[in-house]
C-alpha cells in the first residue's frame, strides 16, 4: 500500500546514495531570470552543456516591468539580468524560452499549467519556492536553490532526502464568499509557518475534490508557507479535463496511455501517512493576515490575539510584527482604512481570480483613495480578461489593467508599496518589506481584495 506521493517518488528514483539522499529524475524544469544566472555560470565554468534542453521551460517574470513591456527595460541592472537570461537561453540551445511580451510569457507557475507543461505523475522543479503550485495536478513539485538548478541543467536530476508525508483532509462544504485562498490561509494559521516543515502534504476530502483546477493550484501554491516541501492533490476528471488539448499536453495514443496511468495515481486505501490532520470547510470564513508572516491569519470578523494568547518564546517576534504593521494586540481590523490593492501573483493571478474580483466590483466604483494594481498572471490570462468582457467591466468600475509578471508580489520592479502604507494583497507573503521597504501587507483572497478596493477599508465581502 502506497500513498500518491510514494508512487510518484518511487517511479523517479535513479539511484540512492548510501546513508544519504535519493537521486531523483526530473520531468519538467521551469526557469526564471533571477535564480538561474549563477547556475549557467556554473555550467560554463565546468564546461558543461544542458543535458536535456527540451525539458526546461524558461520565462522572464520576477524582475520585469508591468507597463511598457514593448520598450527597453529602464533599470540597467534589471535589464542586464534579463539580457543575461536571453543570452543563456541562446548559448545553451534552450528552445522553450518565452521572453517578455511573448504570448506564452507570464509568471512561471501560471504559464506551466496553462500551456500543458504540467502533468499528473510528473516530477517538477524550479528555482522558486512556489513550484508547489504544480502539485495541484498530482505531481511532485518543489522549489530548489540555484546550486540545484545547475544540477538539473547538467543532469536532469537532483539529490533530495525523502520527505515525510502528511495528509490534510477538508471535509464538508465552504460557506458563501469563501474560496481556496481562505482555506489555505486558515490552514496556515492553524499549522504556523513551520508546521509542515519536512513534510510533503496530500490534500484530500470533499471540499478539495470540489475545487476547480485553478483553486487547487491556489491551495498547493501556499503549501510552502507552512514550511512543506510541497503539496499535491490526486488527479481526477477535473484534472484530466484541464490538461487535455493544451499545447504541450500528450496527444493521441500517448494521451490514452498516459491517462490510463494517471488514473492509478491515488493513495491506496489504508496507506499510512506520518501525520494526518482534518478540518471542516464549514468552519472557514474569509481570511486576512494581521502580522508579518502568512501564519498570522484570522477570520475577517475576528480580533488579533492578545499577548497572553501567544506563547512566551514567540512574544518578542509577535510584538515586533504588530509594531511593523501598526496594529495593536486584541484589535479588530474590519473597517480599517487601506491604501493599495494588489490582485495578481502565482497564488491569485489566474482567470478565475479575475472573474471573482470582477463579479464583485461590477456596477460599483473603486474607492478614490485606493491605488489598485490588477496584474494578470500571464499574457494568456490577459487575453482572456479582454475576450470575456471583464476588461470593460473593470474599466467601468474605475480599474486599470497592468501587464503580466510577479509585480508587487515581491516588488523587484517598480511596483512597490510605499513605506507605512497598507496593501490588501492576493499574493502569498506578508513578510516585512516584501512589497517594498516598510510596506504593510494584509494577505487575502480576491473577494476580500475586491471589497477593500470598493470601500477603501477592510471589508467582509459577504456583508
Amino acid at each position: 500500500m502506497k500513498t500518491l506521493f510514494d508512487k510518484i517518488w518511487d517511479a523517479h528514483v535513479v539511484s540512492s546514495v548510501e546513508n544519504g539522499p535519493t537521486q531523483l529524475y526530473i520531468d519538467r524544469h521551469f526557469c526564471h531570470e533571477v535564480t538561474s544566472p549563477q547556475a549557467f555560470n556554473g555550467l560554463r565554468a565546468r564546461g558543461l552543456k544542458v543535458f536535456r534542453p527540451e525539458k526546461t521551460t524558461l520565462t522572464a517574470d520576477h524582475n520585469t516591468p508591468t507597463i511598457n513591456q514593448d520598450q527597453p527595460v529602464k533599470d540597467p541592472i534589471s535589464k542586464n539580468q534579463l539580457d543575461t537570461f536571453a543570452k543563456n537561453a541562446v548559448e545553451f540551445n534552450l528552445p522553450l524560452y518565452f521572453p517578455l511580451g511573448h504570448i506564452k510569457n507570464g509568471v512561471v507557475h501560471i504559464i506551466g499549467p496553462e500551456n500543458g507543461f504540467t502533468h499528473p505523475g510528473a516530477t517538477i522543479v524550479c528555482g522558486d519556492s512556489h513550484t508547489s503550485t504544480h502539485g495541484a495536478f498530482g505531481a511532485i513539485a518543489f522549489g530548489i536553490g540555484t546550486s540545484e538548478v545547475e544540477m538539473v541543467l547538467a543532469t536532469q536530476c537532483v539529490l533530495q532526502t525523502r520527505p515525510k508525508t502528511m495528509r490534510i483532509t477538508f471535509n464538508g462544504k465552504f460557506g458563501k464568499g469563501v474560496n481556496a485562498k481562505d482555506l489555505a490561509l486558515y490552514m496556515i494559521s492553524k499549522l504556523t509557518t513551520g508546521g509542515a516543515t519536512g513534510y510533503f502534504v496530500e490534500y484530500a476530502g470533499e471540499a478539495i475534490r470540489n475545487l476547480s483546477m485553478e483553486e487547487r493550484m491556489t491551495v498547493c501554491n501556499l503549501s510552502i508557507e507552512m514550511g512543506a516541501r510541497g503539496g499535491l492533490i490526486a488527479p481526477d476528471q477535473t484534472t484530466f479535463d484541464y490538461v487535455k488539448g493544451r499545447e504541450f499536453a500528450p496527444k493521441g495514443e500517448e494521451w490514452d496511455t498516459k491517462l490510463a496511468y494517471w488514473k492509478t495515481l491515488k493513495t491506496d486505501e489504508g496507506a499510512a501517512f506520518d501525520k494526518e490532520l482534518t478540518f471542516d470547510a464549514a468552519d472557514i470564513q474569509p481570511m486576512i493576515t494581521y502580522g508579518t508572516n502568512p501564519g498570522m491569519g484570522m477570520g475577517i470578523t475576528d480580533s488579533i490575539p492578545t499577548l497572553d494568547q501567544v506563547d512566551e518564546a514567540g512574544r518578542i517576534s509577535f510584538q515586533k510584527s504588530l509594531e511593523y504593521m501598526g496594529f495593536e494586540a486584541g484589535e479588530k481590523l474590519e473597517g480599517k482604512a487601506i491604501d493599495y490593492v494588489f490582485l495578481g501573483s502565482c497564488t491569485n493571478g489566474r482567470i478565475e481570480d479575475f472573474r471573482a474580483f470582477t463579479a464583485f466590483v461590477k456596477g460599483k466604483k473603486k474607492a478614490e483613495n485606493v491605488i489598485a494594481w490588477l496584474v494578470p498572471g500571464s499574457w494568456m490570462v490577459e487575453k482572456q480578461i479582454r475576450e470575456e468582457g471583464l476588461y470593460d467591466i473593470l474599466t467601468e468600475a474605475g480599474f486599470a489593467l497592468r501587464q503580466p509578471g510577479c509585480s508587487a508580489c515581491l516588488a523587484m520592479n517598480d511596483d512597490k508599496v510605499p513605506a507605512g502604507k497598507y496593501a490588501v494583497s492576493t499574493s502569498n507573503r506578508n513578510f516585512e518589506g516584501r512589497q517594498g521597504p516598510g510596506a504593510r501587507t494584509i494577505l487575502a483572497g480576491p473577494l476580500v481584495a475586491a471589497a477593500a478596493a470598493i470601500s477603501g477599508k477592510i471589508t467582509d465581502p459577504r456583508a
Partner: protein
Amino acid sequence: MAYLLIGKLYFMEKFIKLTSSVVPLPIENVDTDQIIPARFLKATDKNGFGDNLFADWRYNKDGSPKADFVLNNATFSGSILVAGKNFGSGSSREHAAWAIDGYGFKVVVSSFFADIFQNNALNNGVLPVVVSADFLAEIFATVNADPKATLTINLEEQTVTNNSTGKSETFVINAYKKECLLNGLDDIDYLLSKKTLIEQFEKSIK
C-alpha cells in the same frame, strides 16, 4: 571552478573544528526576504550579497547603519550566527545563503530551520546546526551576559559546545552531506558520475 573547490577545501579544513564568538539574533521566523530583500537579487553572480545581509534591519533609508541592529553593534562578532526558531523560511533564493556566507558566517545555529534554506546553506558550505530550544535559550543568555563567550562546533563529532557553561549537544547531519563538507565535494560531481545510470533510467521510462 577550481578556485572554488580549493576555497571549499581550505574552508573545510578550518571547519572540522570551529571555535568562535557569536552574533545573537533572537528573532523567530527570520525569512529569506529579511536575510536578503528581493531588490538585491538582480545580480548575475554570487558575489557581494554579504554587504546587504539583513539590509532592511541593518541600514536606514539613507544607507547609514541602524545603531540598534546587532550587526552594527561592535560588542558582538564572530563567524557563528545564532538565531530564533524557524530560520530561513520563505523563498528558495540561494542568495540568502550567499549573503550569510559572504558576510563571513560559517555556521548558523537555531532550534529549527526551513527546508530549502537548510539545503542551500549546505550546498554553499555554510553549516546549519540544530540545537534544542533549551540549549538555544541558554546560548542567548550566555552571550547576553558575556558577548565574548564562544561556541565550539565540531563537525567530525557532530557536537556543539557552549564553552562558558561546558554544556554540549550533538547535532544531526546527513552522513552524505557530512562527507561532502569534510571532503569539499559537491552534489554536481556526484550526479555527473551517474550519467550512464541516468541514460538507462530514461530508456526505462520511454
